[in-house]
């Protein structure tokens, strides 16, 4: 038994196992989140949600995947097919690749990059590229409108997203996610959301906008431009875009947890589970994901100018001011 485990921990083997595990995690996360989304919506609106396929409707995502695999992939006649089909790939990469640098348990990380946070910021911005590719490649007016809105929104919210991480970096003195989690300590009062509360809130809101969730879902805007940048997608191409949207929502929740809520650290020291600390990570991430869904069914969509104002006139100044406060406080104490 021990030798088998040792073999699995040898280098290229460990990497490929972790790759498989992360792919498994991302796809299942997407499936489970679609289900959770519809169930949450159901219960918030006093109905059941999907409840036909399997016990309590739990097999609904599997049925959806089978259905979507057998659906025709319609693409508009004059679409630029390379861009059109490249968009799901460009959107899936950031949703999956950033999981590489997140520590799930003590030392359990695929690659402990010493520039982890920078890697996260850089790779997430590929997502904006995917939106523009999808919108422009479809050769459709609605798509183009959605893509332009998406581009404006995603570049605007990237600024507060990037700046809100500075406090955490200063307190840790490192860009590695592993160091960030280790420095937060095994008690909840050591986590960064307390000294960095404005930054944590900014990151939460900017993250919500970055993954295009309600109230920031203008690129999709069902009631005005129907599907926005993905209005022309169908079948499996559409499913891939949806999957990457949900996976990046899960990713954003887990980054929230890792940076501000202690990652895999237990809330109180005596609850430490050793290698099984990933349970804490999962619980906290699930809680944040639930708040994302809760917000979706409670808050109406913003108008475009309100959206830009919130980003540039409220969130960016907050992060700059709190940067001063953090720097000053670290100087004094």
């Amino acid at each position, binding site marked *: 038994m021990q030798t088998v485990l040792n073999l699995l921990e040898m280098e290229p083997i460990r990497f490929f196992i972790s790759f498989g595990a992360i792919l498994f995690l991302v796809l299942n996360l997407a499936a489970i989140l679609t289900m959770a989304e519809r169930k949450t919506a159901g219960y918030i609106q006093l109905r059941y949600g999907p409840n036909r396929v399997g016990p309590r409707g739990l097999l609904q995502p599997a049925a959806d995947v089978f259905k979507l695999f057998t659906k025709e992939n319609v693409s508009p006649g*004059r679409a630029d097919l390379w861009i059109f089909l490249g968009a799901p790939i460009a959107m899936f990469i950031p949703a999956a690749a950033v999981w590489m640098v997140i520590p799930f348990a003590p030392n359990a990380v695929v690659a402990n990059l010493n520039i982890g946070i920078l890697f996260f910021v850089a790779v997430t911005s590929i997502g904006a590229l995917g939106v523009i590719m999808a919108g422009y490649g479809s050769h459709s007016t609605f798509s183009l409108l959605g893509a332009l809105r998406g581009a404006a929104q995603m570049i605007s919210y990237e600024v507060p997203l990037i700046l809100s991480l500075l406090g955490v970096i200063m307190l840790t003195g490192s860009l590695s996610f592993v160091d960030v989690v280790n420095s937060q300590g095994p008690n909840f009062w050591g986590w960064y959301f307390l000294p960095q509360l404005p930054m944590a809130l900014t990151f939460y809101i900017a993250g919500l906008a970055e993954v295009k969730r309600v109230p920031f879902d203008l690129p999709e805007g069902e009631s005005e431009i129907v599907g926005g940048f993905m209005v022309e997608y169908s079948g499996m191409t559409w499913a891939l875009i949806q999957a990457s949207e949900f996976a990046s929502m899960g990713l954003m929740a887990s980054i929230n947890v890792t940076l501000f809520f202690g990652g895999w650290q237990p809330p109180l020291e005596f609850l430490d589970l050793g290698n099984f600390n990933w349970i804490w990570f999962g619980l906290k991430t699930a809680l944040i994901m639930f708040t994302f869904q809760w917000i979706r069914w409670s808050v109406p969509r913003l108008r475009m100018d309100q959206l830009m104002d919130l980003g540039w006139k409220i969130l960016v100044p907050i992060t700059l001011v709190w940067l001063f406060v953090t720097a000053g406080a670290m100087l004094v104490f």
Partner: protein
Amino acid sequence: MTLGLIQQQMAYTTLYLYVGIFMLLITGFVATVLVLARLLAPSRKSRTKDEIYETGESTVTDPWRPFPVRYYVFALLFLIFDVEAAFLYPWAVIYKSLGVYGFVEMVIFVVILGVGLAYAWKKGALKWV
């Protein structure tokens, strides 16, 4: 019993090679899914399916005509702040050892940018049209 797949000490080159391989594998996976879907799904061409969706109306204008991008000022601001972040990140990493010197440096740097942002705000560049 160890369940966690513990990362070993690795050389930088190996680490970044992994990042590259990871992205290639993901691209390969998505491309495979697309090809599989192409093979499994039916494909019957028709004129109607070639048309683009616009709530049932036929399209009047070509979406690829030149269009005004109203928010190029936002794009410029984004670029400025992104570069600012590229300067601030290394500064933030070693801030603990910089002391007062680092604080004053950063204040000057951020104030200049803050004045820029205030100027853009005053000029109405942050107004969505």
